[in-house]
């Protein structure tokens, strides 16, 4: 029998018992809908999590530390490195080298120093964090009050909202545009070193490594007048920082220009090796897809790296498991629907015994009969799948609406937690048909095996 004849006969047979087949089809559609709703919830949640992480600006970032520092963080790796003290340090040449790596857009040191703000005759203590210009893209600045730094070395400052409240409890917003004074410790090379004015890298690099024992610096209290340009709600890259929260933000190049003394300077002076080193360098990569490559290159230089990519590995594993579970739960309804298909078709075989016998008598082969029942099962699967997608879509919209209302109540921006990707539509219909065909296996072979002589016996 030809395909279109098969389909035509199948559809007309299905229409013979509209109620029964309709109910079965609705059963399938409920199964498909629950599967679709569950899986697209999984997809939606995953995308939501990924979007959040991407917004945090950590996806395109590699954090680099020297193996000399933070020993014991990764024991396995430490055991491989028998002599961590010989590991390269994060100094200016290393930084320059990283800057010239392919796909790298910027390499900024992580600057975190103690500082004091003089405002209204009072001093307020806080950690000062240097921010690169690329930080503008960070989601923390999505609801920035005021403006971002006008330039990489601008004498400007952005305050954390909490800190701004400390300065002016009445109306912290009034701070924007005002000038405040920042007190900080300036790192000055010892007079023994050649340069008077501590042009940091130059000064230290020119220092003779042989006279390393004499290496040292003094920290001198300095003040700098800065203009408040903005107030931000949360600390950018907050998740990746060390314990203390930064509350005062300066352009990172400004902090370097001002030679602000960092904790790590102490360490490098103890090490006695000479030049200025960085505790952490933040390497930004043009394309999140290239992070692994860059990470690899930096690892080869002998540094320890960390990127969110490492974290997302376990995140992806989590979502795979989540999808699996959601899929299993979603499939339960479809499994029940499968039983409904089998039931419906077995009934149909019983009811149409005579008809099957007639068809065989006038020339239908066993295969024709089998294919006819398969086609009926498949058609139910197809229509059930279509209906199920529609139903699942409605359920998903309801989920989105529900979470939207919930998030709104908690003053959070609404998020689409449920996303129906196009591949899932195709996959769901395909799966529905496949499952239906599987369910049709038994009834179809039963119909094909019917003995026409028995079924045509005159009652």
């Amino acid at each position: 029998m030809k395909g279109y004849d098969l389909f035509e006969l199948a559809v007309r047979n299905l229409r013979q018992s509209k109620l029964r087949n309709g109910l079965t089809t609705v059963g399938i559609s409920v199964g498909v809908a629950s599967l679709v709703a569950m899986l697209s919830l999984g997809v939606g949640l995953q995308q939501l999590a990924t979007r959040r992480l991407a917004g945090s600006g950590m996806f395109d970032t590699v954090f680099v530390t020297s193996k000399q520092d933070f020993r014991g963080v990764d024991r396995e790796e430490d055991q491989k490195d028998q002599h961590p003290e010989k590991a390269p340090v994060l100094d200016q040449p290393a930084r320059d080298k990283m800057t010239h790596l392919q796909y790298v857009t910027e390499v900024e040191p992580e600057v975190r120093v103690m500082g004091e703000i003089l405002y209204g005759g009072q001093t307020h203590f806080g950690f000062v964090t240097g921010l690169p210009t690329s930080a503008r893209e960070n989601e923390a600045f999505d609801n920035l009050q005021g403006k971002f730094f006008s330039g990489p070395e601008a004498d400007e400052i952005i305050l954390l909202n909490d800190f701004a409240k400390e300065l002016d409890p009445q109306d912290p917003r009034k701070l924007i545009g005002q000038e405040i004074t920042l007190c900080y410790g300036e790192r000055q090379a010892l007079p023994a070193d050649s340069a008077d004015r501590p042009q940091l890298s130059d000064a230290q690099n020119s220092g003779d490594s042989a006279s390393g024992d004499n290496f040292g610096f003094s920290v001198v209290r300095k003040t700098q007048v800065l203009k408040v340009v903005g107030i931000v709600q949360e600390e950018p890259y907050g998740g990746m920082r060390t314990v203390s929260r930064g509350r005062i933000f300066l352009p990172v190049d400004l902090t370097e220009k001002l030679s602000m003394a960092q904790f790590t300077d102490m360490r490098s002076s103890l090490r006695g090796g000479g030049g200025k080193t960085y505790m952490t360098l933040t390497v930004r990569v043009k394309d999140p897809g290239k992070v692994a490559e860059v990470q690899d290159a930096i690892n080869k230089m002998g540094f320890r790296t960390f990127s969110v990519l490492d974290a997302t590995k376990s995140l992806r594993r989590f979502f795979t498991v989540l999808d699996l579970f959601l899929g299993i739960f979603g499939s339960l309804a479809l499994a029940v629907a499968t039983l409904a298909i089998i039931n419906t078709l077995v009934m149909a075989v019983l009811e149409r015994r005579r008809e099957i016998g007639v068809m065989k008598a006038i020339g239908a082969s066993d295969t024709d009969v089998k294919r006819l029942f398969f086609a009926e099962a498949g058609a139910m699967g197809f229509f059930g799948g279509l209906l199920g997608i529609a139903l699942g879509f409605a359920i998903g919209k309801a989920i989105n609406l529900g979470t939207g209302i919930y998030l709104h109540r908690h003053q959070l921006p609404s998020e689409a937690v449920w996303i129906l990707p196009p591949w899932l539509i195709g996959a769901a219909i395909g799966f529905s048909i496949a499952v239906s065909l599987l369910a049709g296996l038994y009834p179809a072979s039963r119909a094909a095996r019917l003995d026409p002589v028995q079924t045509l016996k005159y009652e």
Partner: protein
Amino acid sequence: MNTDNVCRYYPMGGGVIRAVDGVSLTIDRGEFVALLGQSGSGKSTLLNLLAGLDRPTSGSVLVQDRDLAKLSSEELARYRRNDVGMVFQAFHLIPSMTITENVELPMRFAEVERAERAQRVRESLERVGLGHRLEHRPSELSGGEQQRVSLARALANRPRLLLADEPTGNLDSRTGEDILNLVRDLSLSLGMTVVMVTHERALAERFAQRLVFLGDGKLLSQEVVA
């Protein structure tokens, strides 16, 4: 067309029922043969063997030197589809289909092109004298009309062998005669071999060329009608 049935032997049920017990019969091409006998004499079983709906336990059914007993089930289906037309006592039309669709059905199995089908349906229905009520369902037709539809369906794939199982059993005698007249005319005009099972000897004598008497699954006697 030459049907040479050497021997058929056929058990069924819990014990062995010898429905057809060693029957040898030769039917010539274009012949109109009537199988007569009491119910349970094995005449319907014999017909089903000829139709390829059933397989003999032993012996062979030769149709044009082809042994039906040795054909695969797919080949048997093809034989039924292309070489055989069947008519039943209970008509066995498919109730949900219209007259046209019923006649068209065997051509779907034979994979006849759509355009040709419509023409052949018309042709078959004209042959049996039905040109109207083609979109009606079988239940809306009289018994005689239903049997005509059934005959038209049997003719759809232009078979060489027409097998009729008590075709007049559900009809009044006048309608029954009409149907058998039609069958005989078709047999003559199309050169079709006809094998008809009946228990009405009078009808058989009027239309068939040869009478074959069966009893307890055995061939009792044969009689050629003058």
